[in-house]
């Protein structure tokens, strides 16, 4: 598992049924692109978060396939819309096989 990888998400505490709202996500990760070389001129191997997914009560909101061109500490913002209260789950996958998750509850009202 890469060091110090920490997700953060911002989800409103409540939302009106059927109305789109914004979700912001961030995860601290170096995103070594594979383009850099070390001081001896050897390429530094790629090591990035390559996939992100957000689900709500088992249904998918969005999925993203990330490449080395995504900046350090990948930031992804998108919109969701829900009909009932429940839980958002967020999953990030790392090139090294690790998986990081976070979740946030929300009520419809």
């Amino acid at each position: 598992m890469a060091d110090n990888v920490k997700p953060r998400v911002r989800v409103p505490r409540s939302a009106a049924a059927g109305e789109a709202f914004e979700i912001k996500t961030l995860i601290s990760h170096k995103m070594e692109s594979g383009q850099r070389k070390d001081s001896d001129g050897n390429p530094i191997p790629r090591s990035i978060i390559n996939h992100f997914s957000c689900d709500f009560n088992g249904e998918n909101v969005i999925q993203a396939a990330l490449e080395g061109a995504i900046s350090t500490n990948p930031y992804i913002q998108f919109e969701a819309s829900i009909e009932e209260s429940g839980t958002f789950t967020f999953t990030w996958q790392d090139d090294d096989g690790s998986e990081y998750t976070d979740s946030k509850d929300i009520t419809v009202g």
Partner: protein
Amino acid sequence: MKKFTLSATVAVSLAFFAGTASAQVTDALVVDGTAISTSAPASDWLDIDQVLSGWSFRTVETRALQTDDFDNPGMIFVDQAIDDWNTADGTEGKSCASCHTNGPEEFAGLRAELPRWDEEQGMLMNMEDYINLSRVEHMGAEPWKWAKPRMNAMVALLSLQSRGMEINVAIDGPVADTWEQGREIYYTRVGQLDMSCANCHEDNYGNMIRADHLSQGQINGFPTYRLKNAKLNSTQGRFSGCMKNIRAEPFAVGSEEFRALELYVASRGNGLSVESPSVRN
């Protein structure tokens, strides 16, 4: 009055950056709903009329990053510092939280006065000094190196507690001599490019240096998240970088010279608000 004293090869601006996105702004910075002023009348001992935060010299997109604590990439490191705050370290088995039971909020107001003379310690103290003082004497832990990620993150966490407060650094009394020393360093040309801090930051702020929009070099927003290296940068780390940019041998981080310079540069920003952790290019 701005004098054109930079050598021509360095000071030439690329024509297509004139105007548009490089204009300096005077808007208020609103962070998560709270307005923070980004300009103030300069101290009377300064040759300029108004002191301006570095925020005003950045592009629209960069400025926007600082208006929201989620969007602000520096806040990730503040989160990491909160973890360190709560983690025991050292022979005494204590964390910061063990003694500072009211949380980092206890440090509200400190950043606005630093660097400052501490009578009990008998020296000019920086945030890093206070952090290491506690680590070594109260926690029995190893001191953290200045200008390194862990220290920068903790300095950011504690500086954040003063965000929005007016910078008010004392320049007289026990620090008067050090302040003079700092002032002299600020105005002394050094390096292969033979430039002083003043050449860019006093004489040419607002102008372009190649593709960079020169600011007044204020440090009210430090530690700052720089887009360039995607991490928090400390004041003295930046001083070191600047000196290398003009091909001068930098003073050491934590040295007497950089401490004096930091005191002087901080005081040039008196009247501005603490913005830490800020976002810059």
